[in-house]
């Protein structure tokens, strides 16, 4: 019961979520209808915020990046091509690019230094930070069981913005291994999700 609605995840904890077909939402946003933006925010802000937070690891900066991400989605919506993939996939890419740009910016590294000086405790271990989302706690447990080498490759490439050669260098493994390990990592992930759904 806990993992039933994973593909429309998570439905229970945000009361104002509106159920709307993706095509209708896309057409609202193409027409630059601000209401579409409200629905988009209500349906995806927690997923995008969690994703951004995973990269940035700071509430305030993550919220800024979240806002910038939604503004970019709003202003560049004409660039979204539904034939190329789901809306959420595209949004995750926008958020990912913005968050990684932020992490690599001078301003961020400066802040990060100061932050590390004041409290060096809560950085990097993302596991402790996602307690706001009770629906996914169980799933997190499962993912934690994922082989560290698979988790690591996804963390570097997907959340870290590493290219495959950068990842190869970082992990000190051949380029071909980065590829195959990525393949296996995602298949393992998929297995985990399939398991939770069938439960």
């Amino acid at each position, binding site marked *: 019961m806990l993992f039933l609605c994973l593909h429309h*995840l998570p439905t229970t904890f945000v009361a104002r979520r509106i159920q709307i077909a993706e095509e209708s939402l896309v057409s609202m946003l193409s027409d630059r209808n601000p209401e579409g*933006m409200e629905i988009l925010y209500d349906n995806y*802000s927690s997923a995008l915020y969690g994703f951004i937070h995973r990269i940035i690891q700071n509430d305030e900066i993550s919220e800024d990046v979240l806002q910038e991400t939604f503004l970019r989605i709003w202003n560049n919506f004409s660039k979204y091509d539904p034939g190329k993939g*789901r809306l959420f*996939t595209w949004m995750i890419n926008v958020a990912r690019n913005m968050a990684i740009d932020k992490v690599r910016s001078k301003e961020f590294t400066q802040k990060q230094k100061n932050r590390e000086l004041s409290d060096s405790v809560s950085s990097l271990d993302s596991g402790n930070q996602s307690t706001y989302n009770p629906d996914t706690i169980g799933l997190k447990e499962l*993912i934690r069981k994922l082989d560290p080498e698979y988790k690591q490759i996804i963390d570097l490439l997907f959340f870290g913005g590493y290219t495959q050669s950068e990842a190869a260098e970082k992990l000190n493994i051949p380029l071909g291994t*980065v590829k195959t390990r*990525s393949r296996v990592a995602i298949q393992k992930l998929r297995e985990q999700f399939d398991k939770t759904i069938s439960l």
Partner: protein
Amino acid sequence: MDVREYISSGVLDLYAMGALSTSEIKEVETMCTSYPEVAAELRKIQDTLNDYSKVHSRNPRPEVRASMMSKITATEKGKIVQLRSTHELTYKYLIAACIASLIISTFASVFFYQKWSEAEDRYVAMINEKNVLAQNLNVVRYNYDKMNHDLSLMRDPAVTIVTLRSSDTTKYYMAHVMWNKYTRQTFIDVADLPVPPDEMQYQLWALVDGHPVDAGVFDMGTDAGMQKLKAVTDAEMWAVTLEPKGGSESPTMDQMVLLSKI
């Protein structure tokens, strides 16, 4: 191309995680359009990553939503206001241009109307002047023709000019008679004679073989000039008498006004 091998290579997974270079990205996208199986597999991978992203879901502070929405409505309003204000500005410029051209054309109309009526007045004046000149020219030409005619008569070698003077030596009345000996034509040119009373007319007489012959009556007038009278045969003497209007058959001797010398 072995599709299964391509899928299991892991390139789609790298693509979905954003770990490929631009040229590799293009390659994957062409593969997806050519092989539906590749596209389907990529979709599955993306769904897995989407789910994985959602695992990390957490709620931003509620203020973030309001702040974002106000920014979005602000960009929209800004656009609308800007659009409208540029339109208004264009209209303002158009109206200003219309008013300016109206004022200019009004002034121009008044100016040209004045010029036109001035020109019209001058034109009428010139037409009148031209008519006066033409009339004057006609008078001059008439006089010229007449004088030319008179002069040609006097210049004719066949013409004899006789001067007639007052028989009363206290008065300086005078006239000239011109007589052509071939054509026998007679002309009189009055130089100075008093204006005759009404019902009276001057009459020229030619003395032929001792007898007075009527040579015709003539009028007095400033522009009378040379007047053609009756043809007479060779005259010994000429005389002018004052006679009742229409002339007499024989001269009234006590009314003799002019007489030529013998």
